[in-house]
């Protein structure tokens, strides 16, 4: 019990960074997903190829490799600094999951039934109106459950930023462990519990998104 009292306040110091990285990654990741998803559906072949390349590269390699590459290699290659470890971490996570989620955006839009586009055309809607009023609102409902699952995946991946020196929950856990190895079981169990507590609202949100998506979709 004493150990917990000792460990708890130290780990709490890392919560802020974990949550900041998580929120920034979620926002940027979803943004990236929509941008890349739409680019892959564009009529412009160059845009399509470039986005396709981005998606395959980020899906084909590991997040941890991407993180190290952005943090250690990119600055050497172009002689520029990303600015901070915060942005290196957020960029790696959001570019990685943005690539995965762009596939969800793309496939959801493609799986809205063809009849929906036809009905919208028959009402003389423009291409943009068809997307905005008819296709997109239905596609978003299809994206919701999978987008929900990615919330948890992104949370889990934030723990990687401790490896580039960000002071998140795991970072403080590692500090405690290296100062007193016998505390390791308490420390890491508590770290896991911290992450689980942050995950709970995300799990709840995922369930909500799943039930919201059950309404109002016409798929092929």
């Amino acid at each position, binding site marked *: 019990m004493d150990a917990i009292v000792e460990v708890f306040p130290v780990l709490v110091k890392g919560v802020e960074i974990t949550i900041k990285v998580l929120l920034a990654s979620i926002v940027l990741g979803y943004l990236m997903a929509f941008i890349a998803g739409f680019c892959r559906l564009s009529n412009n072949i160059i845009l399509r190829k470039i986005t396709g390349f981005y998606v395959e590269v980020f899906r084909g390699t590991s997040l941890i490799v991407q993180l190290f590459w952005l943090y250690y290699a990119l600055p*050497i290659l172009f002689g520029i600094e990303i600015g901070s470890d915060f942005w290196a971490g957020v960029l790696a996570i959001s570019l990685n999951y943005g690539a995965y989620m762009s596939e969800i955006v793309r496939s959801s839009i493609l799986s809205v039934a063809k009849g929906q586009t036809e009905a919208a055309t028959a009402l003389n809607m423009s291409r943009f109106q068809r997307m905005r009023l008819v296709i997109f609102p239905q596609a978003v409902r299809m994206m919701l459950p999978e987008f929900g699952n990615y919330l948890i995946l992104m949370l*889990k991946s934030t723990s990687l930023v401790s490896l580039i020196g960000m002071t998140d929950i795991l970072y403080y856990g590692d500090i405690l462990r290296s100062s007193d190895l016998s505390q390791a079981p308490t420390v890491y169990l508590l*770290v896991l519990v911290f992450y689980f507590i942050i995950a709970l609202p995300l799990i709840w949100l995922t369930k909500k998104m799943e039930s919201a998506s059950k309404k109002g979709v016409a798929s092929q």
Partner: protein
Amino acid sequence: MNNWSWEIFLEAFPYVLEGIGITIGLTIACYLFALIFGFIWTFVRRIPVKPVRWVILWIMEFIRSTPPLVQLFFIYYAWPMVPGIGMTLSPFTSAVLGLGIHYSTYIGEVYRSGIDGVDKGQWEASRALNFSTRQKWTKIILPQAIPPTIPMLGNYLIIMFKEVPLASTIGVVGILQMANNFGAENWRYLEPLTIVAILFLVLSYPSAILINKLERKMNRRFDKKTPTGSKPISKANAPG
């Protein structure tokens, strides 16, 4: 781009490549562990005692919602310190247990979706034909439940491959750790890290295409009835 050096690239390449055996070996070990452990989840969550089932579901949820990296540290650093049952494990064994257990909860879901995907009439038919429980599972249910899950399971092999470099953090010397070592010795991270990325891409991209083909073939064979209730992440080939 003037900082790129082909000389260093060529020097680093064989160095980094030395780690590929460990990376692939660890991938396979973790995967097999997850495949076997996944079965255990599938069966214990069917235990017909509600509180037991409830506890098991929460344990699965806990393992699934917390970072595999922390689980890895727990097994490598904390497990030896647990009084009574704790023991020291090698980095490789720790990684097999850590990543294996984490992904077994996902694999368990895949099995479950396969079993749920078997038509209800099949259960009724096997009852009507008076099969024993054992016969019901081995002759009727599993032969139908397993094939449709094969593409999803294949996907998890690729996901596992991409998760394995996490083990470099506890000292498993795969390609990522080799690149880090090269970087530390020569103060050059750009080329070795790029090599790691290329190796991952070269190995995982063709596998992903293969899995996609397999999936399409399976869909045709099984009349497009992919298992229901599967976690969509498997389709998206996402890492944990």
